[in-house]
């Protein structure tokens, strides 16, 4: 493997972030508990600077580095900037939650930054091993973060489940990758594409590998039937970590799907194969996610099942197998992250010392205690249900359009019918906030920073609903400029 100094330029953001993590790790040793805000501040600065660095590549044609292990293109720039900002916003929401729970420590921030780095590596990977390394860096950081509340039996259990099932999924992925390697004699995405196109690859082995890879992706994404860990982990993890798991990694997972399925295994014959698998996973996710969410009384569990159903929608966009579908899926996942930040962020904001506001009951009468935050939550819930004029509607519209355009009208009908079922439990949240009398009189104590950000978050859901054009255009451009398999 040759190394040239030019390789450093496309990866400057990752290198900066890695350096920053090391500095923060060391610096935190010299910071007393009262001055922990220094660590927090440095973390935020590192994330924002990284976001700026990545955003620089938003117009560039694909640039390959490190012997083709790494790619910097418009697609990765957009997603990486999104990941950094999402983590940064999540940390702002988490701050007042972490402090009273003894998690406001250097480890938390360092782990969050390592997870971010892992996601960035995943998004920019152009080689199965780089992809896998990024994924493991992300997963290991998240396992540790879930277990960070050491005294909580529930968190420890969740961490254990997450770890065991995550390891199983990684194993499946590796197995699948090894089969692809066996068929194509390469792990570099470009070479895999070339080998498949040349027709030399053994298609039986390739398809076997594909099955394992799809199963691995299903695990990481939390799509049915590989979803068992999602509710337990979302429920058991400290809410700040749930926010972390539920938002930015979805962007990385989408990039993972794009790199693996769309690019590496995007040959027409293989698309036909994985489309069928994704159809099944998507329908099952829509059914299970939406129906089981109704029975939940815990807000985090409910949102976990709602995530499962949203992943079903995301897969709808991917399975259409054309540029429109991929950009629709990218738009969907971006919108989902914005909504997820709002929903999980609201649970964090409502929690206070010694009380986790994670039961549906805690939302009762919120509109009388805090009309503004209740309004934001209302907007987020209607957006998740896909009711205009919120942005969730356009997300649904774009994936449905992708599905209908390939002639799968029945799939679109199934999707909308189950999103109707989903509307019920989102409406129940609105009902609790607006129609019921408050069961407690506690006042939310929201810091200035998180208050302003949460307001901006809610307004963004509404404003993007009025003007979704810009975000749609960004997704479309990123996909068309970057993807190597154009149909």
């Amino acid at each position, binding site marked *: 493997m040759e190394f040239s100094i030019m390789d450093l330029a496309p990866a400057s953001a990752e290198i900066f972030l890695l350096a920053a993590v090391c500095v923060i790790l060391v610096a935190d040793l010299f910071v007393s508990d009262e001055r922990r805000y220094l660590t927090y501040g440095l973390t935020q600065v590192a994330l924002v600077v990284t976001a700026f660095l990545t955003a620089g590549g938003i117009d560039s044609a694909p640039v390959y580095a490190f012997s083709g292990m790494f790619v910097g293109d418009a697609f990765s720039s957009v997603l990486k900037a999104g990941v950094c900002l999402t983590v940064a916003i999540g940390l702002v929401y988490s701050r007042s939650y972490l402090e009273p729970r003894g998690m406001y420590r250097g480890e938390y921030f360092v782990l969050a930054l390592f997870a971010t780095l892992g996601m960035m590596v995943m998004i920019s990977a152009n080689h199965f091993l780089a992809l896998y390394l990024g994924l493991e860096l992300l997963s290991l950081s998240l396992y540790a973060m879930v277990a960070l509340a050491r005294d909580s039996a529930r968190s420890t259990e969740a961490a254990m489940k997450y770890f065991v099932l995550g390891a199983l999924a990684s194993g499946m992925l590796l197995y699948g990758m090894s089969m692809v390697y066996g068929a194509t004699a390469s792990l570099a995405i470009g070479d895999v594409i070339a080998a498949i196109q040349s027709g030399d690859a053994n298609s039986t082995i390739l398809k076997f590998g594909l099955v394992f890879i799809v199963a691995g992706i299903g695990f990481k994404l939390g799509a049915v039937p590989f979803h068992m860990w999602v509710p337990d982990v979302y429920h058991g993890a400290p809410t700040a970590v749930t926010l972390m798991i539920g938002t930015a990694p979805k962007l990385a997972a989408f990039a993972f799907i794009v790199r693996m399925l769309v690019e590496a295994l995007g040959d027409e014959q293989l698309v036909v194969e994985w489309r069928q698998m994704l159809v099944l996973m998507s329908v099952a996710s829509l059914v299970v996610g939406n129906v089981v969410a109704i029975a939940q009384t815990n807000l985090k569990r409910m949102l976990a099942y709602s995530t499962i159903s949203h992943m079903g929608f995301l897969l709808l966009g991917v399975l259409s197998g054309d540029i429109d579908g991929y950009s629709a899926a990218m738009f969907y996942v971006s919108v989902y992250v914005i909504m997820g930040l709002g929903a999980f962020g609201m649970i964090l904001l409502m929690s206070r010392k010694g009380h986790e506001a994670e039961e549906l009951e805690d939302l009762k009468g919120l509109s009388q205690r805090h009309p503004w935050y209740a309004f934001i939550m209302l907007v987020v819930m209607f957006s998740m249900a896909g009711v205009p*004029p919120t942005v969730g509607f*356009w997300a649904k*519209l774009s994936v449905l359009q992708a599905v209908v355009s390939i002639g799968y*009208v029945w799939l679109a*009908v199934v999707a909308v019918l189950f999103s*109707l079922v989903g509307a019920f439990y989102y409406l129940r949240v609105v*009902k609790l906030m*607006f129609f019921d009398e408050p069961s407690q009189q506690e006042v939310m104590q929201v810091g200035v920073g998180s208050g302003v950000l949460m307001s901006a978050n809610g307004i963004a859901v509404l404003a993007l609903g009025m003007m979704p054009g810009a975000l749609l255009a960004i997704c479309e451009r990123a996909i068309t400029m970057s993807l190597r398999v154009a149909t």
Partner: protein
Amino acid sequence: MLPFAPLSTVIWLPIIAGILVLFTGSDRNAVLARWMALIGSVAGFLVALPLWNGFDRNLGAMQFQEFQPWIETFNINYRLGIDGISLLLILLNCLTTVLVVIAGWKVIQSRVAQYMAAFLILSGMINGVFSSLDAALFYVFFEATLIPMFVIIGVWGGPNRVYAALKFFLYTLLGSLLTLVALIYLYNASGGSFTLLDYYLLPIPLTAQILIFVALFAAFAVKVPMWPVHTWLPDAHVEAPTGGSVVLAAIMLKLGAYGFIRLSLPIVPDASQYLAPLVIALSLIAVVYIGFVALVQADMKKLIAYSSIAHMGFVTLGIFIFNPHGLQGAVIQMVSHGFISGALFLCVGVLYDRLHSRLIADYGGVVNRMPVFAAFFMLFAMANAGLPGTSGFVGEFLVIMGTMSVNFWYTFTAATTLVFGAAYTLWMYKRVVFGGVANDKVASLSDIDRREFFVLGVLAIAVLCIGIYPKPLTDVLNMSVAGLLEYVAVSKL
């Protein structure tokens, strides 16, 4: 004399006014919120008036068109324009909003700002539905109206309000989601356009037409509501606050019928013709069967709700016989039903505010204590029964005349409404208003105040004017109806 972008003004002025009202915050500023809402709604009505004056009655095409590119990825545009049908419904909506704000003046004492804002925002959105010429824009407005209505029923409604609000929302969402799929299908079939006027000219095979028709029907039939998907309506009406009932009956039901007129008929004319007997059958069942159901109701609001379903059956009947009389009658019936049902719900509201009961059995001899009210109530009850000289007669008469040229038995069945309508309305009126004073509570009733007098007075004038001289309405409708029927007459196979 037209303001810049008249349709946008009609849509956004009430919405902005509503948002401003929201900012008055808690109930300490309730008085300010009420006055701001009143000014906003009156302004909303005033800016709609130039549409009436400036409307060219000799033109069948869409007027006051506005165009702005909106979402270029999907070729969705902010395209507005109205014909005579939309014009009448917009005016009806703007007027109703003013009356609803006044009607809620004293009754609503908690969360006043939110109540008033919800109605103003709802009013703007409904104007948006009536003036959209882009399918996606239409859908956005159509769906968005659910949110304020859901909140209105759920927050200010009666004891069983949560059930009613959820039922209302989910029922209507089910239909609209299927419509969404149909619209996306049309988008693909038309090669990437959401413009309604493009869909009007798009050839579609019969099977696809029928499926599209069914999907659109799912949304609009629930909204109208047609038998047998009407069951959400009585629940929603009974639980909604008076203002909510008025808007629901007067305006929101019209969205469904309007959808038939604007989308179903011109986009899938062959399927509409093919399935017309089914729709007509459902309409006639609504007219007759629901008439019987209304007869046995013990709750006044429920009775009027069922009577609404029966009257809306007339509207769908008029639409699906595809002739000028029928269609004109249907639109006039929509406007007239807007005034009459709104007025009847307000009348029930007047009684409910005083005695907190909607049961017919709790009343009797109201005329002895509330003579002025009894006179108004009488007028609206008669109009509901379709008495000549009131607006209720004009629409029904035109529809009946239209059906006569199609099929005698349609006419015969439809005309029975004149009997049933009179029976259930007047029987209720008799039990509530006439007779001796039934109990101490009724004895303590006081007659309507000036505010209530004003609201009912405006509606009474409207009902009588349309009943006596409907020509201004038919003038506005003539060309639009003729233009629409041309689309229906041309096969798209």
